[in-house]
């Protein structure tokens, strides 16, 4: 280490004490940090090993194959009392992904509506939106979830007095009953038709864009695309038959038969998360729209464009550049906040794995590690996707 001297020191010919040499000091600090970290980790690992051995808990992931033996009330794929812990983990993971995906969509739609409403020229609408944002943001999410679950859904009437919505949906203590399509043999042609319609819409929109670039002639590609996506399956269905029947919920004795039941836990979690996140998204949307200088709108109007076009083609694309990065954080927050489901009994990954499985097996380290790893991977994927999207829309300068 004595040979290590700064260039300046060598130049002056003087030898500087080692502790004043910048490179040596940096190396020393890093060695100390690394050493402490290694020591601390070793200490923790050793203690954990001793503690687990004392409790007779073998470490490792072998327990995932063991029979779970508990039931899960809400599942997307088959699961029974004899399924393994690994299967239970899958159920929890799928539930987390489902609630996050639907929640992100709902929160985005609601957030954009409220954010635009805050900027409305209509005084009462703008004020209502502002109050919505302030109230929602300043009351803890857990209190809101408890409100939706214990305060609203639990006070709904029993099955026999269900609230009837259009004769199709029924709302009661056990959740929401909705009609569900039942697929018949030969249905396979419908998704193909949908795909063809969607492909047609993409082609039309590409052609319209090229034509507008070349000639400046706009084309109502949105409506044509929508027509294709809806129309092609409709025509195919009319010719070959839809091969699909609807199962409607019907009151039979003490419960509903048919249809699809959405658990109250899921509804409460979804409503709570979406409303909570939408208040934050609304603020992001507002600041994004306000960041677009008013001159842009005026220039668009001066060109004789309609207000809708100005908003869609001039203001929104520029606002999105400001909106997308913080929006990513909100999507991540929503996904992470879905873990609060543990308080209202919705079986997502934390409740199933860090809760029930951990309690039954005692495999604390493995259960927590897996749960955390799942969230880390989800976070990583969401931010990768949003960063890709962000690059896609970002302003390209020179």
């Amino acid at each position, binding site marked *: 280490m004595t040979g290590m001297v700064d260039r300046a020191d060598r130049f002056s010919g003087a030898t500087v004490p080692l502790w004043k040499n910048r490179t040596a000091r*940096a190396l020393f600090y890093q060695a100390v*940090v690394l050493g402490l970290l290694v020591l601390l980790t070793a200490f923790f690992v050793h203690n954990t090993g001793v503690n687990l051995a004392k409790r007779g808990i073998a470490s490792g992931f072998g327990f995932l194959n063991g029979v779970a033996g508990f039931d899960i009330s809400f599942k997307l794929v088959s699961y029974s009392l004899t399924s393994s812990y690994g299967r239970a983990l899958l159920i929890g993971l799928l539930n987390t992904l489902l609630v996050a995906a639907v929640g992100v969509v709902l929160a985005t739609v609601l957030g954009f509506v409220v954010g635009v409403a805050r900027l409305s020229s209509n005084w009462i609408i703008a004020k209502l939106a502002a109050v919505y944002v302030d109230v929602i943001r*300043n009351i803890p999410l857990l209190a809101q979830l408890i409100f939706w679950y214990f305060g609203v859904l639990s006070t709904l009437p029993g099955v026999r007095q269900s609230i009837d919505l259009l004769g199709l949906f029924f709302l009661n203590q056990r959740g929401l009953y909705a009609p569900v399509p039942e697929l018949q043999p030969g249905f396979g042609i419908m998704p193909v038709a949908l795909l063809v319609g969607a492909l047609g819409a993409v082609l039309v929109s590409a052609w319209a864009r090229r034509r507008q670039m070349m000639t400046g002639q706009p084309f109502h590609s949105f409506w044509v695309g929508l027509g294709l996506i809806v129309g092609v399956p409709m025509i195919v269905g009319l010719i070959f038959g839809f091969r699909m029947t609807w199962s409607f919920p019907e009151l039979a004795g003490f419960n509903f038969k048919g249809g699809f039941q959405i658990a109250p836990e899921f509804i409460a979690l979804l409503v709570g998360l979406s409303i909570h996140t939408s208040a934050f998204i609304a603020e992001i949307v507002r600041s994004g729209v306000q960041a677009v200088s008013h001159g842009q709108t005026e220039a668009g109007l001066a060109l004789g464009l309609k207000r809708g076009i100005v908003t869609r083609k001039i203001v929104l694309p520029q606002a999105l550049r400001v909106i997308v990065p913080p929006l990513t954080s909100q999507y991540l927050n929503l996904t*992470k906040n879905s*873990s609060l489901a543990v308080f209202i009994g919705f079986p997502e990954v934390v409740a199933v794995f860090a809760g029930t499985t951990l309690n039954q097996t005692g495999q604390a380290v493995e259960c*927590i590690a897996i749960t955390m790893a799942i969230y*880390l991977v989800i976070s990583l994927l969401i931010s990768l996707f949003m960063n890709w999207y962000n690059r896609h829309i970002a302003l390209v300068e020179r």
Partner: protein
Amino acid sequence: MVDLAHRADEPPPPPESRKPDEPPPVMAVGLLGWARAHLFSSIGNSILTLLALWFLYKTIPPLVDWLFISANWQEGTSRADCVKPGACWTMVRARFGQMMYGFYPVEERWRVNIVGLILVVGVAGILIERVPHKLWIGAFLFLIYPFIAFWLLCGGLGLVPVDTSRFGGLMLTLILAVTGIAVSLPVGVILALGRRSAMPVIRIVTVAFIEFVRGVPLITVLFMASVIFPLFLPEGVTFDKLLRALVGISLFSSAYMAEVIRGGLQAIPKGQYEGAMSLGLNYWKMNSFIILPQALRICIPGIVNSFIGLFMDTNLVLIMGLVELLGIAQASTRDPNWLGLINTALAFVSVIYFAFCFGMSRYSQALERRLAKGRRR
């Protein structure tokens, strides 16, 4: 005001014979004019206004009725005393002490009050612009106050000892939030500096910590604090439940604080660093006298925001069996005497949370405007 009706060859009428200006049309000024411009400027807007009014008519009167008019305000001991159909404030009155102090012994609650009073006075001293000696107040709050608070709350040295398992209610909410912020500020500064350090090992360690903690939900951190931390310690060493929650919350908020402070550090122009270095200041002097004072000032709104978030997130310690304000309120509606009053309990705690959080966010907005004043030219 040019009168085009007059011909050019005619002399203009003398000023006093001119007709007085017509008042503006009734529909353009006053309440009517305002309503036309802000509520009924177009057909779409009129429909929206009417819908909003209908919505308010459908929600506000029932809410006011439930909260105040048909509410039960009298004292009582069980749900049977709530005879009116509205909110049952009777329950809140009966459980008020618990919601504030948890299960802290009634005759010792004065100690909590003193701790709270010092905190309020100290924080007010820092927040109110005119109070002098802010540095000393801050030093007292960060260095001496924690020990006084610990002694008063937990007892010992002449005071009756109180076990931390009896802490609860708003008091516990504040303990968690204030400790979280007090620990996360310095730790966050260190992590933020580490993240921008030129030393690769330190940078990697801090980045790994920050990204790891920010990538997982607080609940999993609390789960870890409650089931894994005890495993980390040597046999026989136990670890208070409240302390575990504090460690978990502090780790979590430190990572978020680090990112807030990093934002502030990034906003400092390079010239400030160069200026400091050309003065011959070393790394620590440069940061503590030149860079951090400016950076921290910039990120005060961000710090307040993360404090608000932390304040609201403290109720997740319920997962560890600690009952802060929301937990106690919910628990009191599980008491057989007060079953089914969850909405009253939620209304009460929501008002408290709202008052704290809304107050803080408004203060931070005012502060932002005040700090921006110096930069306006």
